[in-house]
């Protein structure tokens, strides 16, 4: 039946929409056909969705030094504009002028010196040999991926529901505010997961299952299983962790199905800075310990809200690094429209957060311990040159993210840079990859690597486990000479990955960053859209596509026999505070007894989460 007919309606705004309830039994092939039909009709349209104003050059003023020019979108009307990136007062700024909405200036990178250092580590990707959409529009109104895109995906995001059991005041994504329910069937999910796997030369291998709140889906474990069947070797679930605080079995099932790690929101160590899941996190961590499922904490950092707690978040991660694998910090992306004065209260960039961590850790984690994401591309390039097989390479724009590794020993924090000459090693590997690509004898190159690798390592300064028997050197030999990556587990043992990813918004938007994005969303119509198009221009990407493949709330309630409102989470703070895990997890990070119960309740309620006794 479905093979004969597609159930597509066209709404007044000419946006097509599927009667999704008729697709509950549809096959992968049905979705293939439906997606092919809808994809061109969901693409952004010149004149309707955006305009081009490329002849308007943004001005520069006294005391401003231009760095480069780029393209950027207007925050008011999505028009594509020329923008200038420039230096002023030791910082990097972006300015653009929309003929309809005037001049827009925004902080781009909070420290010029760090901008220059990070820029020196830029490595671009080599693009994709096949893409999902033809080139029909300027970037970023052609996302899908288009033939211009410079990076292959390092991580695919799959939205499995827009339902959420919270109603955070800043979020417009969840079902009851959106007015529809987006929840693809398992066959539809299988169709979506297959699209990024088709990319060549490097198909996607890492997946993040996200929402809404993915743990609200009763078949989440099946989704993890399908992802593994489709060839994703790394699967992570992005969650608030709230359901996992009360459902230890779910953690075990997710782990057994092949989930590698959880990505859990964690905005601070106190109830004031983390009203989303402050009280539940200790219980979630305990359940994850029992399941052997690691977690990465994901704080969103806002200047006047929790920037001054970012160091404590790192200490929290170190305190629990038996189960916390990393902290991946996200400087805020300003969604919606906001006047400049308001933005200045919120805006932080990667250097601002890095320098705050340096301050809070009293220099133990310094600004020079951090490297931009594309700095590690020479490692992939070297291994690729040796093996002759394509490898995942992280080739985002240098302003998109940064990372480092730290260990803690006897109360001292040891960043990786204390015992590895990271700059020297990366440069060396890049040179060796060059030699291999130019046809130099592999064995001569290997011999050179074997002889010189030790000069980049000072084992005496490494954490004890890596220091003993010069384990760190043996480990590097295994990776770079024998290509035995199983030993990487040894490197990660007891370490804490610190990452930073600054997703864009329409104020600091830079097309050069979009083109290099390697964190993509797979869409219900099979497109693969860079994160900063999917979420930064949501009306043209995320919302339009998801709405087209959605149920009405009424229809969903009729089909499932459940009420959306009944799924909302209500918090029993008194009970959570009384449990032993609460004190054990936060002890030493803030004065637990100084916060009255009423303050806890107020923090939760202000955030939008009701409290029950």
């Amino acid at each position: 039946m479905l093979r004969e007919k597609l159930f597509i309606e066209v709404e007044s705004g000419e946006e097509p929409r599927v009667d999704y309830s008729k697709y509950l039994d549809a096959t992968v092939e049905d979705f293939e056909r439906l997606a092919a039909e809808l994809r061109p009709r969901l693409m952004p349209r010149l004149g309707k969705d955006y305009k081009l104003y490329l002849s308007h050059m943004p001005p520069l003023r006294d005391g401003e030094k231009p760095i480069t020019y780029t393209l950027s979108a207007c925050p008011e009307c999505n028009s594509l504009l020329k923008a200038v990136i420039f230096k002023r007062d030791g910082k990097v700024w972006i300015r653009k002028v929309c003929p309809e909405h005037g001049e827009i200036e925004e902080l781009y990178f909070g420290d010029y010196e760090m901008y220059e250092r990070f820029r020196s580590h830029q490595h671009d990707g080599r693009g994709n040999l096949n893409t999902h959409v033809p080139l029909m529009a300027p970037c970023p109104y052609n996302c899908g991926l288009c033939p211009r895109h410079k990076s292959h995906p390092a991580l695919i995001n799959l939205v499995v529901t827009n339902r959420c059991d919270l109603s955070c005041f800043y979020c417009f994504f969840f079902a009851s505010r959106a007015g529809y329910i987006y929840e693809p069937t398992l066959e539809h999910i299988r169709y979506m997961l297959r699209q990024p796997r088709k990319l060549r030369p490097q198909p996607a291998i890492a997946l993040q299952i996200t929402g809404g709140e993915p743990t609200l889906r009763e078949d989440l474990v099946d989704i993890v299983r399908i992802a593994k069947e489709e060839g994703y070797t790394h699967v992570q679930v992005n969650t608030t962790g709230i359901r996992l605080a009360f459902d230890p079995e779910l953690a075990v099932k997710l782990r057994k199905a092949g989930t590698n790690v959880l990505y859990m929101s964690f905005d601070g160590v106190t109830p004031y800075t983390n009203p989303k899941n402050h009280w539940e996190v200790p219980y979630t961590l305990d359940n994850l310990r029992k399941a052997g499922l690691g977690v990465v904490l994901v704080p969103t950092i806002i200047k006047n809200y929790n920037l001054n707690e970012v160091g404590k978040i790192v200490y929290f991660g170190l305190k629990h690094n038996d189960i916390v694998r990393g902290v991946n910090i996200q400087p805020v992306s300003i969604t919606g429209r906001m006047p400049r004065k308001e933005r200045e209260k919120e805006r932080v960039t990667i250097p601002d957060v890095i320098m705050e961590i340096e301050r809070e850790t009293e220099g133990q984690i310094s600004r020079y311990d951090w490297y931009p994401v594309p700095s590690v591309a020479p490692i992939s390039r070297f291994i690729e040159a040796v093996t002759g097989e394509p490898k995942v390479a992280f080739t985002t724009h240098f302003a998109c993210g940064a990372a480092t590794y730290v260990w803690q020993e006897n109360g001292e924090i040891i960043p990786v840079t204390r015992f590895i000459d990271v700059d020297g090693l990366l440069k060396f590997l890049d040179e060796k990859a060059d030699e291999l690509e130019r046809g130099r004898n592999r064995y001569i190159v290997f011999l050179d690597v074997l002889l010189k690798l030790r000069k980049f390592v000072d084992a005496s300064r490494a954490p004890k486990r890596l220091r003993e028997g010069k384990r760190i050197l043996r480990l590097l030999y295994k990776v770079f000479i024998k290509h035995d990556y199983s030993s990487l587990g040894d490197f990660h043992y007891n370490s804490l990955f610190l990452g930073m990813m600054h997703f864009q918004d329409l104020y600091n938007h830079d097309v050069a960053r979009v083109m290099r994005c390697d964190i993509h969303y797979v869409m219900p119509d099979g497109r693969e859209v860079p994160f900063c198009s999917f979420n930064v221009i949501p009306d043209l990407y995320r919302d339009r596509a998801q709405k087209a493949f959605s149920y009405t709330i009424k229809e969903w309630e009729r089909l499932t026999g459940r009420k959306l409102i009944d799924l909302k989470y209500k918090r029993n703070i008194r009970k959570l505070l009384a449990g032993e895990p609460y004190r054990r997890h936060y002890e030493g990070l803030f004065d637990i007894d100084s916060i009255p119960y009423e303050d806890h309740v107020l923090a939760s309620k202000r955030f939008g989460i009701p409290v029950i006794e």
Partner: protein
Amino acid sequence: MTIKAFSFTVRTNDPRPLDLSVSTHVYKTGGGVMERIALVGREMGEEDILDFDAEFGDTFNVSYNDLIHGEYSITVMEGEASAAPLLKIYLYDDRVRGDSGVLFRVVGEGGETIYVDNVYFSSPLRTRIARVARLLGVPQRLVEEEVKRLGGRGM
């Protein structure tokens, strides 16, 4: 039909060093022969941006946004030809990678790309020449001679 091609030079440092020159030569093919199409140059306008991206996004991973990041010069070249399969030969000199050579694009009668090389993933030149000659139905020797005449390296 109208034929459009681009020749350009770009030099940038942000976000990464790029120092690249590309010149394009276009040939009409059919009946076993190749005929170079005479093109007339003009300045680039806003209406050319998409065509530029389409031409150099999948070949050199370069787009208009890369050009405006630094200093660039560009010539848009246009000409007329009756409907026929076309061969575009790109001669490039990448001074950052220390690489120069030749890429091909075969365009069908309807304007669709039938075959295109990518600078990062291309096979040896002779293999590619054999392939485009086969696709166009012209003797391999003709393509080889033209590449030599243009000064393409790698023969």
